[in-house]
Protein backbone atom coordinates (compact mmCIF):
# COMPACT_ATOMS: atom_id res chain seq x y z
CA UNK A 1 0.00 0.00 0.00
CA UNK A 2 2.70 2.49 1.09
CA UNK A 3 6.32 1.87 0.24
CA UNK A 4 9.05 4.28 1.32
CA UNK A 5 12.51 3.70 -0.15
CA UNK A 6 15.69 5.47 0.89
CA UNK A 7 13.91 8.58 2.13
CA UNK A 8 16.18 11.40 3.30
CA UNK A 9 15.17 14.80 4.56
CA UNK A 10 17.19 17.81 5.60
CA UNK A 11 16.11 20.97 7.38
CA UNK A 12 18.97 23.28 6.42
CA UNK A 13 21.98 21.17 7.21
CA UNK A 14 20.17 19.13 9.87
CA UNK A 15 19.65 15.59 8.58
CA UNK A 16 16.25 14.72 10.11
CA UNK A 17 15.34 11.58 8.14
CA UNK A 18 18.15 9.16 7.31
CA UNK A 19 17.61 6.53 4.66
CA UNK A 20 14.12 5.50 5.75
CA UNK A 21 12.70 2.25 4.37
CA UNK A 22 9.15 1.44 5.36
CA UNK A 23 6.34 -0.67 3.95
CA UNK A 24 2.77 -0.59 5.09
CA UNK A 25 0.48 -3.31 3.79
CA UNK A 26 -3.21 -2.94 3.00
CA UNK A 27 -5.16 -3.01 6.28
CA UNK A 28 -2.02 -2.83 8.39
CA UNK A 29 -1.77 -0.59 11.45
CA UNK A 30 1.75 0.72 11.99
CA UNK A 31 2.53 2.67 15.14
CA UNK A 32 5.56 4.92 15.06
CA UNK A 33 7.18 5.74 18.38
CA UNK A 34 10.41 7.39 19.41
CA UNK A 35 11.85 10.27 21.40
CA UNK A 36 10.97 13.88 20.72
CA UNK A 37 12.79 15.26 17.69
CA UNK A 38 13.47 11.83 16.21
CA UNK A 39 11.61 12.71 12.99
CA UNK A 40 8.28 10.94 13.48
CA UNK A 41 6.14 13.94 12.47
CA UNK A 42 8.42 14.72 9.57
CA UNK A 43 8.11 11.15 8.27
CA UNK A 44 4.34 11.29 8.62
CA UNK A 45 4.16 14.63 6.81
CA UNK A 46 6.43 13.39 4.02
CA UNK A 47 3.96 10.60 3.28
CA UNK A 48 1.34 13.06 1.98
CA UNK A 49 4.00 15.54 0.92
CA UNK A 50 3.10 18.29 3.36
CA UNK A 51 6.87 18.19 3.74
CA UNK A 52 9.04 17.79 0.65
CA UNK A 53 11.49 14.92 0.80
CA UNK A 54 15.16 15.54 0.10
CA UNK A 55 15.69 12.25 -1.72
CA UNK A 56 14.14 8.81 -1.95
CA UNK A 57 10.87 7.41 -3.24
CA UNK A 58 7.37 7.20 -1.84
CA UNK A 59 5.10 4.77 -3.65
CA UNK A 60 1.39 4.52 -3.00
CA UNK A 61 -0.02 1.29 -4.45
CA UNK A 62 3.13 0.99 -6.52
CA UNK A 63 2.73 4.47 -8.06
CA UNK A 64 5.25 7.19 -7.16
CA UNK A 65 3.52 9.86 -5.08
CA UNK A 66 3.16 13.01 -7.24
CA UNK A 67 5.20 16.01 -6.14
CA UNK A 68 2.95 18.92 -7.01
CA UNK A 69 -0.19 20.25 -8.63
CA UNK A 70 -3.53 18.55 -9.11
CA UNK A 71 -1.99 15.08 -9.00
CA UNK A 72 -0.63 15.82 -5.54
CA UNK A 73 -4.03 17.11 -4.42
CA UNK A 74 -5.47 13.86 -5.77
CA UNK A 75 -3.02 11.84 -3.68
CA UNK A 76 -3.85 13.80 -0.55
CA UNK A 77 -7.55 13.23 -1.13
CA UNK A 78 -6.86 9.50 -0.76
CA UNK A 79 -4.60 9.87 2.28
CA UNK A 80 -6.38 11.14 5.38
CA UNK A 81 -4.45 13.03 8.03
CA UNK A 82 -5.23 13.83 11.64
CA UNK A 83 -3.13 16.47 13.39
CA UNK A 84 -2.10 16.92 17.00
CA UNK A 85 -3.79 20.34 17.05
CA UNK A 86 -7.03 19.16 15.32
CA UNK A 87 -6.94 22.06 12.82
CA UNK A 88 -10.70 22.17 12.35
CA UNK A 89 -11.74 25.09 10.15
CA UNK A 90 -12.59 27.74 12.72
CA UNK A 91 -15.14 29.62 10.61
CA UNK A 92 -17.26 26.60 9.77
CA UNK A 93 -19.58 24.42 11.81
CA UNK A 94 -18.54 20.87 12.57
CA UNK A 95 -20.90 19.61 9.87
CA UNK A 96 -19.52 22.07 7.29
CA UNK A 97 -15.99 21.01 8.24
CA UNK A 98 -16.82 17.44 7.31
CA UNK A 99 -18.72 18.37 4.13
CA UNK A 100 -16.25 20.82 2.59
CA UNK A 101 -13.70 18.52 0.97
CA UNK A 102 -16.17 15.91 -0.35
CA UNK A 103 -18.06 18.72 -2.08
CA UNK A 104 -15.07 20.72 -3.38
CA UNK A 105 -12.70 17.87 -4.15
CA UNK A 106 -14.91 14.87 -4.92
CA UNK A 107 -17.72 16.98 -6.35
CA UNK A 108 -20.36 15.34 -4.14
CA UNK A 109 -23.78 17.01 -4.12
CA UNK A 110 -24.72 18.81 -0.90
CA UNK A 111 -27.49 16.42 0.28
CA UNK A 112 -25.26 13.43 -0.25
CA UNK A 113 -22.29 15.11 1.47
CA UNK A 114 -24.51 16.07 4.40
CA UNK A 115 -25.90 12.56 4.78
CA UNK A 116 -22.40 11.05 4.80
CA UNK A 117 -21.16 13.72 7.19
CA UNK A 118 -23.96 13.08 9.67
CA UNK A 119 -23.35 9.34 9.48
CA UNK A 120 -19.65 9.83 10.19
CA UNK A 121 -20.31 12.23 13.07
CA UNK A 122 -22.62 9.62 14.56
CA UNK A 123 -19.95 6.97 14.05
CA UNK A 124 -17.43 9.00 16.08
CA UNK A 125 -20.10 9.75 18.66
CA UNK A 126 -20.68 13.48 18.20
CA UNK A 127 -23.86 13.58 16.12
CA UNK A 128 -25.42 16.19 18.45
CA UNK A 129 -22.48 18.58 17.96
CA UNK A 130 -22.93 18.84 14.17
CA UNK A 131 -24.15 22.44 14.13
CA UNK A 132 -21.71 23.87 16.68
CA UNK A 133 -18.56 25.80 15.90
CA UNK A 134 -15.30 23.93 16.59
CA UNK A 135 -14.36 26.25 19.47
CA UNK A 136 -17.54 25.21 21.30
CA UNK A 137 -16.39 21.58 21.48
CA UNK A 138 -14.06 19.88 23.95
CA UNK A 139 -10.65 18.80 22.65
CA UNK A 140 -11.72 15.19 22.45
CA UNK A 141 -14.82 16.10 20.47
CA UNK A 142 -12.79 18.31 18.14
CA UNK A 143 -10.34 15.52 17.44
CA UNK A 144 -13.18 13.09 16.74
CA UNK A 145 -14.68 15.67 14.36
CA UNK A 146 -11.28 15.94 12.65
CA UNK A 147 -11.22 12.15 12.23
CA UNK A 148 -14.73 12.26 10.73
CA UNK A 149 -13.59 15.04 8.39
CA UNK A 150 -10.69 12.92 7.15
CA UNK A 151 -12.89 9.81 6.78
CA UNK A 152 -15.42 11.74 4.69
CA UNK A 153 -12.95 11.60 1.79
CA UNK A 154 -13.08 7.78 1.93
CA UNK A 155 -9.27 7.63 2.24
CA UNK A 156 -7.31 4.48 1.56
CA UNK A 157 -4.82 5.29 4.32
CA UNK A 158 -5.06 7.37 7.48
CA UNK A 159 -2.09 9.17 9.01
CA UNK A 160 -2.26 10.24 12.66
CA UNK A 161 0.38 12.58 14.10
CA UNK A 162 0.12 12.38 17.88
CA UNK A 163 -3.68 12.70 17.81
CA UNK A 164 -4.04 12.59 21.59
CA UNK A 165 -1.04 14.63 22.72
CA UNK A 166 -2.95 17.90 22.99
CA UNK A 167 -5.81 16.36 24.96
CA UNK A 168 -6.65 16.37 28.64
CA UNK A 169 -6.11 12.85 30.02
CA UNK A 170 -9.82 12.14 30.45
CA UNK A 171 -10.40 12.72 26.72
CA UNK A 172 -7.61 10.54 25.39
CA UNK A 173 -9.69 7.37 25.72
CA UNK A 174 -12.60 8.55 23.58
CA UNK A 175 -10.27 9.36 20.67
CA UNK A 176 -8.30 6.13 21.01
CA UNK A 177 -11.57 4.19 21.02
CA UNK A 178 -12.52 5.69 17.66
CA UNK A 179 -9.08 4.85 16.28
CA UNK A 180 -9.22 1.30 17.63
CA UNK A 181 -12.60 0.78 15.98
CA UNK A 182 -11.21 2.15 12.73
CA UNK A 183 -8.27 -0.24 12.91
CA UNK A 184 -10.64 -3.14 13.60
CA UNK A 185 -12.61 -2.15 10.48
CA UNK A 186 -9.52 -2.78 8.40
CA UNK A 187 -8.34 0.78 7.75
CA UNK A 188 -4.68 1.08 6.79
CA UNK A 189 -3.15 3.36 9.42
CA UNK A 190 0.16 5.00 10.29
CA UNK A 191 -0.05 6.34 13.83
CA UNK A 192 2.58 8.45 15.59
CA UNK A 193 1.77 8.24 19.28
CA UNK A 194 3.09 7.99 22.79
CA UNK A 195 0.13 5.81 23.83
CA UNK A 196 1.82 2.49 24.42
CA UNK A 197 -1.47 0.84 25.41
CA UNK A 198 -2.93 1.69 22.02
CA UNK A 199 0.18 0.40 20.29
CA UNK A 200 -0.09 -2.95 22.07
CA UNK A 201 -3.81 -3.23 21.49
CA UNK A 202 -4.27 -2.01 17.93
CA UNK A 203 -0.93 -2.13 16.12
CA UNK A 204 0.14 -4.85 13.78
CA UNK A 205 3.67 -3.49 13.90
CA UNK A 206 5.62 -0.97 15.96
CA UNK A 207 8.31 1.12 14.31
CA UNK A 208 10.82 2.71 16.65
CA UNK A 209 12.63 5.81 15.41
CA UNK A 210 15.61 7.58 16.88
CA UNK A 211 17.71 10.37 15.45
CA UNK A 212 16.04 10.25 12.03
CA UNK A 213 16.45 6.51 11.59
CA UNK A 214 14.19 3.52 11.90
CA UNK A 215 16.02 1.58 14.58
CA UNK A 216 13.60 -1.25 15.11
CA UNK A 217 10.46 -2.58 13.49
CA UNK A 218 8.61 -5.42 15.15
CA UNK A 219 5.30 -6.93 16.13
CA UNK A 220 4.08 -5.05 19.28
CA UNK A 221 4.36 -7.78 21.88
CA UNK A 222 7.83 -8.71 20.73
CA UNK A 223 8.88 -5.07 20.71
CA UNK A 224 7.54 -4.15 24.14
CA UNK A 225 8.55 -7.37 25.88
CA UNK A 226 11.94 -7.85 24.29
CA UNK A 227 13.30 -4.84 22.39
CA UNK A 228 16.36 -5.84 20.42
CA UNK A 229 18.31 -2.58 20.56
CA UNK A 230 19.69 -0.61 23.51
CA UNK A 231 18.16 2.58 22.24
CA UNK A 232 14.67 1.07 22.20
CA UNK A 233 15.24 -0.44 25.65
CA UNK A 234 16.32 2.96 27.03
CA UNK A 235 13.35 4.69 25.48
CA UNK A 236 10.86 2.15 26.79
CA UNK A 237 12.39 2.27 30.24
CA UNK A 238 11.86 6.04 30.27
CA UNK A 239 8.29 6.18 28.96
CA UNK A 240 6.97 3.18 30.82
CA UNK A 241 8.16 4.40 34.21
CA UNK A 242 6.09 7.56 33.78
Amino acid at each position, binding site marked *: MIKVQGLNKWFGDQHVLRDIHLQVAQGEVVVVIGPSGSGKSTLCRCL*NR*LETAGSGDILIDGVPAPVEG*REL*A*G*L*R*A*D*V*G*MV*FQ*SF*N*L*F*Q*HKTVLENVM*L*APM*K*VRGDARPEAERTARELLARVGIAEQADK*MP*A*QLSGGQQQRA*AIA*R*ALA*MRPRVMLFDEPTSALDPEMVGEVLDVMTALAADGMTMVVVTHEMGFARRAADRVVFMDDGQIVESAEPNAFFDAPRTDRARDFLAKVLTH
Partner: protein
Amino acid sequence: MSAFLDHLPQFWQGLVVTLQLTAASFAGAAVVGLVITALRVSPVRVLRGIGTAYVETFQNLPLLVLLVLAVFGLPEIGVKAGLLETAIVVIALYEAAYLAEALRSGVNAVAAGQGEAARALGLTFSQSLRHVVLPQALRTVIQPIGNIFIALTMNTSLAAAVGVVELTATANRVNLLEAQPIPIFVGAGLAYALIAACAGFVTGRLERRLVMIR
Protein backbone atom coordinates in the same frame (compact mmCIF):
# COMPACT_ATOMS: atom_id res chain seq x y z
CA MET B 1 -25.01 78.75 3.61
CA SER B 2 -27.20 79.91 0.69
CA ALA B 3 -24.14 79.74 -1.59
CA PHE B 4 -24.24 75.99 -0.94
CA LEU B 5 -28.01 75.53 -1.03
CA ASP B 6 -28.46 77.53 -4.27
CA HIS B 7 -26.31 75.03 -6.09
CA LEU B 8 -27.78 71.89 -4.54
CA PRO B 9 -28.52 70.13 -7.88
CA GLN B 10 -24.91 70.67 -8.96
CA PHE B 11 -23.58 69.35 -5.67
CA TRP B 12 -25.89 66.36 -5.97
CA GLN B 13 -24.44 65.67 -9.41
CA GLY B 14 -20.89 65.91 -8.01
CA LEU B 15 -21.75 63.61 -5.12
CA VAL B 16 -23.12 61.01 -7.54
CA VAL B 17 -19.85 61.07 -9.49
CA THR B 18 -17.87 60.73 -6.24
CA LEU B 19 -20.00 57.75 -5.25
CA GLN B 20 -19.48 56.18 -8.67
CA LEU B 21 -15.72 56.67 -8.41
CA THR B 22 -15.72 55.23 -4.89
CA ALA B 23 -17.90 52.20 -5.54
CA ALA B 24 -16.36 51.21 -8.87
CA SER B 25 -12.75 51.69 -7.81
CA PHE B 26 -13.31 49.87 -4.50
CA ALA B 27 -14.86 46.93 -6.35
CA GLY B 28 -11.92 46.89 -8.75
CA ALA B 29 -9.43 47.22 -5.90
CA ALA B 30 -11.07 44.29 -4.09
CA VAL B 31 -10.67 42.00 -7.11
CA VAL B 32 -7.10 43.06 -7.90
CA GLY B 33 -6.19 43.09 -4.20
CA LEU B 34 -7.36 39.48 -3.80
CA VAL B 35 -5.31 38.40 -6.80
CA ILE B 36 -2.21 40.20 -5.50
CA THR B 37 -2.71 38.62 -2.07
CA ALA B 38 -2.93 35.17 -3.65
CA LEU B 39 0.31 35.90 -5.54
CA ARG B 40 2.05 37.10 -2.39
CA VAL B 41 1.28 33.97 -0.38
CA SER B 42 1.77 31.56 -3.28
CA PRO B 43 4.33 28.76 -2.94
CA VAL B 44 5.86 29.80 -6.28
CA ARG B 45 8.72 32.24 -5.78
CA VAL B 46 8.26 34.08 -9.11
CA LEU B 47 4.59 34.76 -8.34
CA ARG B 48 5.47 36.04 -4.87
CA GLY B 49 8.02 38.35 -6.51
CA ILE B 50 5.43 39.75 -8.90
CA GLY B 51 3.03 40.40 -6.02
CA THR B 52 5.68 42.14 -3.97
CA ALA B 53 6.82 44.25 -6.91
CA TYR B 54 3.23 45.36 -7.49
CA VAL B 55 2.69 46.44 -3.91
CA GLU B 56 6.08 48.18 -3.71
CA THR B 57 5.45 50.08 -6.93
CA PHE B 58 2.02 51.41 -6.09
CA GLN B 59 2.83 52.19 -2.47
CA ASN B 60 5.82 54.26 -3.53
CA LEU B 61 4.14 56.53 -6.06
CA PRO B 62 1.71 59.34 -5.23
CA LEU B 63 -1.79 58.74 -6.53
CA LEU B 64 -1.85 62.20 -8.12
CA VAL B 65 1.24 61.39 -10.17
CA LEU B 66 -0.36 58.15 -11.35
CA LEU B 67 -3.58 59.95 -12.28
CA VAL B 68 -1.77 62.64 -14.26
CA LEU B 69 0.42 60.06 -15.98
CA ALA B 70 -2.60 57.98 -17.00
CA VAL B 71 -4.78 60.85 -18.12
CA PHE B 72 -2.08 62.54 -20.19
CA GLY B 73 0.13 59.55 -20.97
CA LEU B 74 -2.40 56.98 -22.19
CA PRO B 75 -3.65 59.07 -25.17
CA GLU B 76 0.02 59.52 -26.17
CA ILE B 77 0.36 55.77 -26.62
CA GLY B 78 -2.96 55.52 -28.40
CA VAL B 79 -5.20 54.37 -25.54
CA LYS B 80 -8.43 56.33 -25.56
CA ALA B 81 -10.62 56.10 -22.49
CA GLY B 82 -13.05 58.41 -20.74
CA LEU B 83 -11.76 60.55 -17.88
CA LEU B 84 -14.01 58.92 -15.30
CA GLU B 85 -13.10 55.42 -16.44
CA THR B 86 -9.38 56.20 -16.39
CA ALA B 87 -9.65 57.63 -12.88
CA ILE B 88 -11.59 54.57 -11.67
CA VAL B 89 -8.97 52.17 -13.03
CA VAL B 90 -6.02 54.14 -11.63
CA ILE B 91 -7.57 54.49 -8.17
CA ALA B 92 -8.52 50.79 -8.18
CA LEU B 93 -4.98 49.68 -9.09
CA TYR B 94 -3.49 52.03 -6.51
CA GLU B 95 -5.76 51.05 -3.63
CA ALA B 96 -5.40 47.35 -4.50
CA ALA B 97 -1.82 47.55 -3.20
CA TYR B 98 -3.07 48.72 0.20
CA LEU B 99 -5.89 46.18 0.28
CA ALA B 100 -3.41 43.42 -0.58
CA GLU B 101 -1.20 44.49 2.33
CA ALA B 102 -4.14 44.38 4.75
CA LEU B 103 -5.31 41.01 3.41
CA ARG B 104 -1.85 39.54 3.66
CA SER B 105 -1.57 40.49 7.30
CA GLY B 106 -4.93 38.76 7.74
CA VAL B 107 -3.64 35.65 5.99
CA ASN B 108 -0.60 35.66 8.27
CA ALA B 109 -2.89 35.80 11.28
CA VAL B 110 -4.60 32.56 10.21
CA ALA B 111 -2.85 29.58 11.81
CA ALA B 112 -0.67 27.63 9.37
CA GLY B 113 -2.47 24.45 10.39
CA GLN B 114 -5.69 25.68 8.74
CA GLY B 115 -4.21 25.74 5.25
CA GLU B 116 -2.31 22.54 5.92
CA ALA B 117 -5.47 20.72 6.98
CA ALA B 118 -7.22 21.94 3.84
CA ARG B 119 -4.41 20.76 1.59
CA ALA B 120 -4.17 17.46 3.45
CA LEU B 121 -7.82 16.87 2.48
CA GLY B 122 -6.97 17.28 -1.19
CA LEU B 123 -7.96 20.89 -1.73
CA THR B 124 -5.67 22.62 -4.21
CA PHE B 125 -3.71 25.66 -3.07
CA SER B 126 -6.26 28.07 -4.54
CA GLN B 127 -9.21 26.12 -3.11
CA SER B 128 -7.69 26.16 0.35
CA LEU B 129 -7.07 29.90 0.02
CA ARG B 130 -10.60 30.54 -1.17
CA HIS B 131 -12.58 28.29 1.15
CA VAL B 132 -10.47 28.19 4.30
CA VAL B 133 -7.73 30.80 4.62
CA LEU B 134 -9.19 33.95 3.04
CA PRO B 135 -12.61 33.76 4.74
CA GLN B 136 -10.82 33.64 8.09
CA ALA B 137 -8.29 36.28 7.07
CA LEU B 138 -11.07 38.67 6.02
CA ARG B 139 -12.71 38.43 9.42
CA THR B 140 -9.57 39.67 11.12
CA VAL B 141 -9.06 42.67 8.82
CA ILE B 142 -12.55 44.13 8.45
CA GLN B 143 -11.51 47.24 10.38
CA PRO B 144 -8.37 47.98 8.33
CA ILE B 145 -10.33 47.38 5.12
CA GLY B 146 -12.97 49.85 6.31
CA ASN B 147 -10.19 52.38 6.83
CA ILE B 148 -8.85 51.75 3.33
CA PHE B 149 -12.36 52.28 1.97
CA ILE B 150 -12.53 55.64 3.73
CA ALA B 151 -9.07 56.63 2.51
CA LEU B 152 -10.15 55.64 -1.01
CA THR B 153 -13.23 57.85 -0.74
CA MET B 154 -11.05 60.81 0.22
CA ASN B 155 -8.55 59.96 -2.54
CA THR B 156 -11.25 60.19 -5.22
CA SER B 157 -11.07 63.97 -4.74
CA LEU B 158 -7.68 63.86 -6.51
CA ALA B 159 -9.59 63.01 -9.69
CA ALA B 160 -10.68 66.66 -9.61
CA ALA B 161 -7.12 67.61 -10.52
CA VAL B 162 -7.33 65.75 -13.82
CA GLY B 163 -10.73 67.11 -14.78
CA VAL B 164 -13.29 64.71 -13.35
CA VAL B 165 -16.17 66.82 -12.07
CA GLU B 166 -16.83 65.07 -8.80
CA LEU B 167 -17.71 66.61 -5.45
CA THR B 168 -14.49 68.56 -4.86
CA ALA B 169 -14.34 69.86 -8.44
CA THR B 170 -17.98 70.94 -8.13
CA ALA B 171 -17.19 72.83 -4.94
CA ASN B 172 -14.31 74.51 -6.71
CA ARG B 173 -16.48 75.56 -9.62
CA VAL B 174 -19.26 76.86 -7.40
CA ASN B 175 -16.71 78.79 -5.37
CA LEU B 176 -15.42 80.50 -8.52
CA LEU B 177 -18.94 81.84 -9.05
CA GLU B 178 -19.87 82.63 -5.46
CA ALA B 179 -16.49 83.30 -3.82
CA GLN B 180 -17.72 81.89 -0.50
CA PRO B 181 -15.25 79.12 0.25
CA ILE B 182 -16.29 78.47 3.85
CA PRO B 183 -19.91 77.33 3.39
CA ILE B 184 -19.16 75.67 0.08
CA PHE B 185 -16.25 73.53 1.25
CA VAL B 186 -17.81 72.85 4.64
CA GLY B 187 -20.82 71.48 2.74
CA ALA B 188 -18.64 69.31 0.52
CA GLY B 189 -16.63 68.18 3.56
CA LEU B 190 -19.80 67.15 5.36
CA ALA B 191 -20.78 64.99 2.41
CA TYR B 192 -17.41 63.19 2.57
CA ALA B 193 -17.78 62.80 6.33
CA LEU B 194 -21.21 61.27 5.80
CA ILE B 195 -19.78 58.63 3.43
CA ALA B 196 -17.03 57.86 5.95
CA ALA B 197 -19.57 57.57 8.76
CA CYS B 198 -21.63 55.10 6.71
CA ALA B 199 -18.51 53.05 6.03
CA GLY B 200 -17.66 53.03 9.73
CA PHE B 201 -21.18 51.92 10.60
CA VAL B 202 -21.11 49.08 8.07
CA THR B 203 -17.69 47.79 9.18
CA GLY B 204 -18.81 47.89 12.81
CA ARG B 205 -21.89 45.84 11.97
CA LEU B 206 -19.89 43.40 9.83
CA GLU B 207 -17.33 42.94 12.55
CA ARG B 208 -20.00 42.03 15.08
CA ARG B 209 -21.84 39.75 12.63
CA LEU B 210 -18.77 37.84 11.45
CA VAL B 211 -16.98 37.60 14.76
CA MET B 212 -15.45 34.15 14.97
CA ILE B 213 -15.37 32.14 18.13
CA ARG B 214 -11.92 30.68 18.53
